[in-house]
């Protein structure tokens, strides 16, 4: 390995290296900075936001060509850059929108942003993994930080329960992953994604061991993205964790896990797509139904969003399970739209506060449309988009997924998908009903800073006028998907 290639390797990993140094600097800074709690909190948030912005700038100013480094341990291509930018941008936005929540709930400590940064670092490593070891390291770094984050509200029983539950089940999933990797190593003699792909393309392989290893690896990743039937932890953790952390959970780790899922499926295992296609299809349909039925009777907005996430992820998975370039493209479009929508939804949830208490009961939104026309309008747009009504973005996302399914001739699967979507639209509509049709004597009045309003307004306008720029997003996503499928 010559020097030039080594340098190249460092260049490719520059955002990660920068971010880890930034965090290492953060820890002594956090310990030794004095002053008032509130001021320290905003100072630390600002510090971490700058770190993320720095990593983002390094990321997008780098080389967009596909490259591998450190003995093929990591890879950079368009998919990696896109997913990493999504992770960083969402991380920044979530830190911004959770400011108010943290001050009111007194989550001042500096470990909060440090842990967030650590988990983002883990995700970045995970996304550019080209080897199961890199993947495992990244995955563990992000998971361990997330376990602690879930249990961050020390005095809340639910939060501790959430953290513990997440930890135990997460550790189990990691075991599955390691077991799957070791089986794969036994079969192929390598754990590099590209080499596995070469190995599998050379010979037709149909051993039960291979199936078992694929199942184990898929189950582990399914756990991380909360795909049914590995979704059990999701509602409890979403409910128990502090809301700002829930927002983080619902968006950022999902991006990273999908990036790695796409890479494993479409690069390493593309030759054996007949094995994972059916598993994925089954999990997708299950998730869509769990997502739509589970949320029907929820009154807690966080639990409801947990089920909604499961349902939406089912749709992404449905597109992926087609194992076609069109399916991959549609899943990327869906992920993009889903992220914009959830950012808006959580911005809304994180500003629902009345006399220093955060409201997570849906019934407490009743009659909001009169007292807060702006908030309710934005939230209604986002909900109707999640329900998949045209002409909002959610409709196009579902349209693309259904299109990729119909193109493969699986009309019955498409029918099942739309049935799930109709059922799920019931609970989205129910929230709209509570906000617009119900009356209430003391409807709450929400005050928040202008930048929060801006984020909420921006995401709902982006959803509302999606038709006008749909072409751009689609071209972008197909450009990115070509990095993986050639």
């Amino acid at each position, binding site marked *: 390995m010559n020097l030039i290639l080594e340098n190249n390797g460092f260049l490719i990993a520059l955002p990660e290296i920068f971010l880890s140094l930034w965090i290492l600097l953060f820890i002594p800074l956090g310990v030794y900075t004095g002053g008032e709690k509130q001021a320290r909190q905003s100072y630390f948030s600002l510090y971490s936001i700058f770190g993320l912005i720095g990593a983002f700038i390094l990321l997008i100013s780098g080389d967009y060509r596909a490259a591998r480094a450190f003995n093929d341990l990591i890879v950079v291509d368009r998919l990696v850059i896109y997913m990493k930018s999504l992770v960083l941008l969402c991380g920044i936005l979530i830190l911004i929108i959770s400011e108010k929540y943290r001050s009111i709930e007194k989550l001042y400590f500096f470990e909060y942003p440090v842990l967030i940064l650590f988990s983002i670092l883990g995700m970045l490593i995970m996304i550019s993994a080209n080897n199961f070891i890199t993947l495992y390291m990244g995955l563990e770094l992000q998971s361990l930080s997330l376990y602690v984050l879930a249990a961050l509200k020390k005095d809340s029983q639910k939060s501790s329960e959430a953290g513990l539950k997440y930890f135990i089940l997460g550790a189990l999933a990691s075991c599955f992953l390691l077991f799957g990797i070791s089986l794969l190593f036994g079969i192929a003699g390598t754990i590099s994604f590209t080499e596995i792909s070469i190995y599998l393309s050379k010979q037709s392989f149909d051993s039960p061991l291979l199936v078992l290893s694929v199942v184990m690896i898929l189950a582990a990743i399914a756990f991380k993205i909360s795909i049914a039937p590995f979704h059990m932890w999701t509602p409890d953790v979403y409910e128990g964790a502090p809301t700002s952390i829930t927002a983080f959970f619902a968006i950022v780790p999902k991006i990273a896990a999908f990036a790695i899922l796409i890479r494993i499926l479409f690069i390493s295992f593309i030759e054996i797509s007949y094995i994972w296609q059916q598993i994925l299809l089954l999990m997708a349909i299950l998730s869509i139904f769990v997502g739509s039925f589970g949320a029907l009777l929820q009154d807690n907005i966080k639990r409801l969003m947990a089920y909604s996430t499961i349902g939406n992820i089912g749709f992404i998975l449905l597109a992926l399970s087609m194992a076609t370039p069109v399916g991959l493209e549609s899943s990327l479009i869906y992920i993009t739209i889903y992220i914009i929508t959830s950012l808006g939804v959580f911005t809304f949830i994180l500003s629902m506060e009345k006399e220093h208490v955060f409201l997570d009961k849906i019934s407490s939104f009743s009659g909001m449309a009169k007292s807060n026309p702006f908030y309710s309008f934005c939230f209604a747009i986002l909900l109707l988009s999640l329900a998949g009504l045209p002409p909002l973005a959610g409709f196009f996302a579902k*349209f693309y997924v259904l299109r990729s399914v119909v193109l493969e001739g699986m009309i019955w699967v498409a029918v099942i998908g739309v049935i799930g979507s109709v059922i799920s639209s019931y609970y989205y509509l129910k929230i709209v*009903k509570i906000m617009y049709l119900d009356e209430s004597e003391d409807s709450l009045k929400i005050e928040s800073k202008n930048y929060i309003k801006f984020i909420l307004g921006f995401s709902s306008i982006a959803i509302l006028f999606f038709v006008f720029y749909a*072409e751009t997003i689609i071209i972008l996503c197909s450009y990115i998907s070509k990095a993986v499928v050639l």
Partner: protein
Amino acid sequence: MTNWPILSLMIFIPLFGAFIIGLIDGEDKAIIKNSKMVAIWTSLVVFILSLFMWLVFPNSSGFYFIEEVPILSSLGIFYRLGIDGISMLFIVLSAFLTPICILASWKSVKERIKEYMILFLILESLMIGTFSALDLLLFYIFFEALLIPMFLIIGIWGGPRRIYAAFKFFFYTLAGSVLFLIAIILMGYNSGTFDVRELLIYEFPYYLQLILWPALFISFAVKTPMWPFHTWLPDAHVEAPTAGSVILAGVLLKVGGYGFIRFSIPMLPNASDYYSGFVFILGVIAVIYASLVALMQKDMKKLIAYSSVAHMGYVIIGLFTFKQEGIDGAIIQMLSHGVVSAALFLCIGVLYDRQHSRLIVDYGGVVDKMPKFALFFMVFLLASVGLPGTSGFVGEVLILIAAYQVSGYLAFFAGLGMILGAAYMLWLYKRVIFGVVTNSEVLKLKDLEYREIFIFLSLAIVVFWIGIYPECFLSEFREDAANMIDNFNNKVLLINN
């Protein structure tokens, strides 16, 4: 003149008006007054535009006022508008009924007037969009988007069970139309285009038609509504505010019939032929069953709602005869029903505004206090029954002629519905308008004011116009219908031979 972007204007002017109303701010009184004014003027401008469009519209068949802008050019999906004689008249109907609805709610709506006007203007824009879309996906977008404002109109300004009714309306229609979405994707990828004009001449494989047809049928049958998918309609009508019922009966129900004319029959002719017997049975059941149910209603709005089901049953029978008379009759019947049922709902609205009851037993002897009202009510009622000289007659006769050509039994059973129709309508009139006054509240009723007379007069003119000289309307779409039938016969004969 037929390449002006008049359709886009008619879609975007109401949206712009809605946007302006959204910006209105100030004192409560000023807000109410200004939003009403903006709404009525916007809808009048659109109505005038639609009349102008009718004036310059050529009588020959084919699509005019075409506009094309790519939305998703990579998939071949366009913002593609254009109208033929059939859709043109539906657009005029929508543009005619919207100002009437706004006028009718001038005083009866008291809460959240700003939002109310915004929703009506959005609704108008979406209705015009639905009838003018020439791209399958664009049609679906307008078709589905109609649900949102209608859901809110029923849900916010409706009666005591408004939330139940709004949800029922929403889910029936949504569940019905999602299969249509899959059908659209299938149709688009089988033929390689979403352009309605190209799809009209494209021939789908026979087996595919048999699969696609039920998906389209469920979607349109729920909207129409056809028995047994009609149960949402009485609830929605009873709970909706008057103007909501007017739009629902006047325009939204026509979207289903329009879907059959535009998509099911010309695009899937063999399947339509194959399933036509089934449709006739459903149509006959709808006509007779709905009429019998209407006979027993205690609530006036419910009675009119069931009469709508019966009348739409005629429309469906007419369409699936695949005869010139049948299709002409069905279209005239839809237009007539659009005006007549709208007028009947307005009549009930007038009574409801004064007495806050829709129950038949609460009335009786209204003629003594409201003679002008009684006159108008009779005109619309008889038009609904199908008295010669009114609009209802033209459509029903044409449909019966066509039905007789298909089968004598079909004509007999459909004709039976006409008799029942006369029975429930006249009985309603007798119980509400004539008879002795049993309820002392009736004595306090005031007759129509000028605003209401103006509304009813304009509707009555249209009723007589269609009834006495239907040629004005028939000539607009006769060639389109003839063309469609030729096309249909060619395709069906090809397979049968």
